């Protein structure tokens, strides 16, 4: 037997939202297997993640996904040294499916259970493949459910310092796509439509952009798109958005949303005094957002790290963070619960 086979192995389970995933990761960080059963096709017809559908699909898929991950890693359950699972934040029912599977395995195999914060894993993913530590940094997780800024002192010390007061950025992309009769998911659809649109044809608000707080608001922008598309409420409001203005509206909305996101990231970096910004989450795939963040980072002379796309949805990053926790002795008890919401500290008062 070679030396690698003596290294410990951990099974990581992730079911926080629309993906059921399992990975076997060795303690030296080598990913032996990573299986994802995407629920994308289930959600498309609903125009979003439908949570109960998500939980039911997780229940159906979790055991086959775990089995596939073990098989691909060439590993038996008796070879595992720990089970890691995402417990926050996400959809309650979905998280519980993963946690129940993880607890059952940890108990029956008599091995430690490690619980992981999905958002911290998003930021941690920015450091994978880097030759230096990414901490401390300003962390930004932008997705269908999050628009959150963090003060990240270490991999497991990320404090929420700003978030949305209404819709999340990804949610705004989805809802605006619906107003514009564009398909789900809204992000790629709006990005594509915007390529053939002229953003200057419509003036869109940049909510809270000049406020001193690190908060976001997208409800007003969504409403502005609705009014620009169909007219103000009243007898003359159109029932549908005229097709000829869809591309211009998509471009104007995207430009306004990106403007706000980039501006708040800059504000967070300046307030924290860090020289690094780490960005994760599905909306980070937006090309305009990436370009504008890059320009801002250059102007501010900070390092920008955007999580590789495969790690935004893959749970290999989650497993890697689990090893850090395990090595630090931070294991969980079998009565661990899920924390679907976010814990927010009062940043304004702390400063």
């Amino acid at each position, binding site marked *: 037997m070679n030396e690698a086979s003596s290294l410990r192995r951990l099974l990581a389970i992730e079911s926080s939202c629309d993906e059921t995933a399992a990975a076997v990761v060795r303690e030296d960080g080598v990913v032996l297997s990573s299986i994802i059963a995407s629920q994308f096709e289930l959600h498309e017809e609903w125009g979003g993640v*439908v949570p*109960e559908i998500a939980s039911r699909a997780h229940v159906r898929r979790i055991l086959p996904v775990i089995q596939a991950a073990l098989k691909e890693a060439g590993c038996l359950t008796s070879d595992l040294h720990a089970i890691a699972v995402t417990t926050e934040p996400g959809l309650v029912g979905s998280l519980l499916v993963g946690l129940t599977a993880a607890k059952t395995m940890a108990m029956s195999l008599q091995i430690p259970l490690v619980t992981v914060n999905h958002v911290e894993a998003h930021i941690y993913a920015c450091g994978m493949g880097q030759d230096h530590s990414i901490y401390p940094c300003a962390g930004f997780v932008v997705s269908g459910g999050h628009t959150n800024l963090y003060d990240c002192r270490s991999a497991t010390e990320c404090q929420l310092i700003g978030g*949305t007061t209404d819709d999340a950025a990804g949610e705004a992309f989805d809802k605006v796509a619906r107003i514009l009769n564009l398909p789900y998911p809204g992000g790629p659809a709006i990005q594509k439509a915007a390529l053939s649109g002229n953003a200057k044809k419509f003036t869109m608000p940049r909510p809270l952009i000049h406020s001193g707080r690190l908060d976001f608001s997208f*409800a007003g922008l969504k409403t502005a798109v609705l009014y620009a598309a169909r007219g103000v409420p*009243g007898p003359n409001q159109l029932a549908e958005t005229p097709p000829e203005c869809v591309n211009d509206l998509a471009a104007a909305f995207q430009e306004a949303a990106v403007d706000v996101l980039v501006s708040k990231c800059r504000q967070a970096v300046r307030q924290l005094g860090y020289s690094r910004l780490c960005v994760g989450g599905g909306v980070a795939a937006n090309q305009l957002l990436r370009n504008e963040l890059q320009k801002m980072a250059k102007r501010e002379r900070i390092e920008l790290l955007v999580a590789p796309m495969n790690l935004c949805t893959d749970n290999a990053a989650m497993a890697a963070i689990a090893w850090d926790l395990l090595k630090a002795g931070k294991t969980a008890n079998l009565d661990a619960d899920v924390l679907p919401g976010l814990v927010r500290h009062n940043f304004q008062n702390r400063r």
Partner: protein
Amino acid sequence: MNSSLTFLSQSGHETDQLGHALAAVLTHGLPIALNGQLGSGKTRFVRALCSGLGVDIAFVNSPTFVIMQLYTDGRIPVAHFDTYRLGDLDEFLSIGADEYLLSDEWLCLIEWADRISEALPDDYLDIRVQQVAETSREFQFRSTGPRSSGIVDALRNRLSSSPSG
């Protein structure tokens, strides 16, 4: 027996005042059904109401993604629901919503409540928000039983006694 009230808000600020006025007359938990199109200001109204109850509104945002958020730091505990992404009534009940709806203790705020109307108990406060112009919103309050009637009457008295609306 049942009571109704219509309030025309001319601005976001007036919507905030309306939310505060409703908070001031709430003495206990109650299911509140909220309906109105995308962009009608449901979440804004909920934030004002919660702020009036003493909830830290840094935590109050759209629960579209997580379906349910609980705020327990105010005068009355609040369960904030958003059924926008739910498929049917069963899905609403399977997240345990009825536990909150049937308790006297929790103030249940349900956005897009028409989608789960069969789950509503006999006595709840019905609020419909309609965009009537760019910044104007019409709020229609309607009671469905004795407890919600008491709240609508108290809200009417409060609004008529306060010149600012």
